[in-house]
């Protein structure tokens, strides 16, 4: 009989769903439709494989990370599972480099811990102390073996970002979580066009995703729009222009929302510029990162412009 390992306990699960099995044992799991549709009971298999019928309709990035719906999962082998929102384990590493990217965004490199697994565009939690952490997206690409690369924006009165700006230095030991999040590139469909829109330090995950897609020989268009108020809020300009020259399918459009834009820059709110350049997004894959108001508006507007809901990936912060 298959066993479910969850929260340090084991449960026998015969001919019933994971949700029914756990509920019958008095374990409370959030649920709603009980029909494999609403995704309220989303959980993650940490060990063992769940039947693919438990992943029907989930985004490909969730399937890749072994997420499944407890109500429609009838295990056929032993599995160890966790609640979807449980963040990963804590890992100790060390700062390897620090460099300002703009006046208020700091580039921080962290030594790649042994066997650290992540996908470009995911995020980690960085701990100031036992109970205080903030999430930062990864701009690095695993296939390149790079150190983990974060772009930290200084938040006014931000407890963690101010500590990072004032205290951290090369060699400083640092505690991070394993990688989390479902905003990343999944190989496959190499001819699909891709739109990426970000503001401020929202460029970090997009910079990783673009390079990851190019490394995977993505052939469709890859259009990246990065917005800030003014020129001094933009960064990675040279790196992205170099990528643009080397890859005919990659286009980089830096946008400035206040004041006149010099040659090579677009004037306007980044989302408006991206949508007016690409009004029909039918069949496109879309990545949206940065300012929550922009990201939430962009999710709806790119969907209304034709992108399928399961092809829209986002990370507001």
């Amino acid at each position, binding site marked *: 009989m298959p066993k479910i390992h969850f929260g340090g306990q084991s449960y026998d699960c015969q001919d019933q769903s994971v949700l029914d099995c756990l509920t019958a044992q008095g374990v409370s799991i959030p649920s709603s*439709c009980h*029909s494999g*549709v609403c995704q309220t009971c989303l959980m993650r298999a940490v060990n063992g494989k769940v039947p693919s019928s438990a992943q029907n309709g989930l985004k490909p990035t969730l399937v890749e990370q072994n997420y499944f719906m407890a109500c429609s999962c009838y295990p056929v082998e032993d599995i160890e599972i966790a609640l979807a929102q449980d963040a990963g384990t804590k890992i100790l590493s060390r700062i390897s480099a620090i460099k300002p990217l703009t006046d208020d965004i700091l580039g921080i490199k962290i030594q790649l811990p042994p066997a650290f697994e992540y996908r470009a565009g995911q995020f980690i939690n960085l701990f100031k102390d036992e109970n205080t952490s903030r999430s930062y997206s990864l701009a690095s690409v695993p296939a390149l073996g790079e150190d983990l690369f974060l772009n930290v924006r200084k938040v006014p009165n931000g407890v963690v970002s101010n500590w990072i700006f004032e205290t951290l230095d090369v060699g400083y030991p640092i505690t991070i979580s394993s990688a989390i999040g479902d905003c990343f590139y999944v190989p496959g469909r190499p001819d699909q066009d891709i739109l990426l829109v970000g503001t401020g330090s929202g460029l970090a995950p997009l910079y990783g995703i673009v390079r990851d897609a190019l490394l995977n020989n993505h052939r469709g268009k890859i259009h990246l729009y990065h917005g800030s108020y003014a020129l001094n809020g933009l960064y990675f300009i040279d790196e992205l222009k170099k990528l643009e020259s080397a890859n005919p399918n990659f286009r980089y459009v830096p946008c400035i929302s206040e004041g006149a834009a010099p040659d090579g820059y677009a004037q306007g709110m980044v989302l408006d510029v991206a949508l007016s350049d690409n009004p029909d997004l039918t069949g496109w894959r879309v990545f949206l990162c940065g300012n929550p108001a922009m990201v939430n508006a962009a999710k709806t507007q790119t969907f209304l412009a034709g992108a399928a*809901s399961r092809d829209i990936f986002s990370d507001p912060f």
Partner: protein
Amino acid sequence: MSLYDEIGGEAAVNAAVDIFYRKVLKDDRIKRFFSGVDMDKQAAKQKAFLTMAFGGPNKYTGEDMRRGHAHLVAQGLNDSHFDAVMENLGATLVELNVPANLIAQAAAIAESTRNDVLGR
């Protein structure tokens, strides 16, 4: 064969959900009820609704429907808005070339939730 199987099961729901939700978000009569709502969560709910309307597996009760829409009723949700959703549902199924007799059955299922959705 059940209505759900005749319409095309989960594949039909997946095909319908974006078309339906796009119509709803563009509909001036009802789009305000969806402003500020997280798209991903909302798309999953639309999918659950369509699955139910297609006669598919669901365990929603009248009580769930009342609880889920109470905050919208407080914002003025009424028959005219329910009618608009019904219209969008019908138009979606027409667009997907679902035969008229099956559309009528799906519409009847959706219609049966009216009083619960509107909290009466």
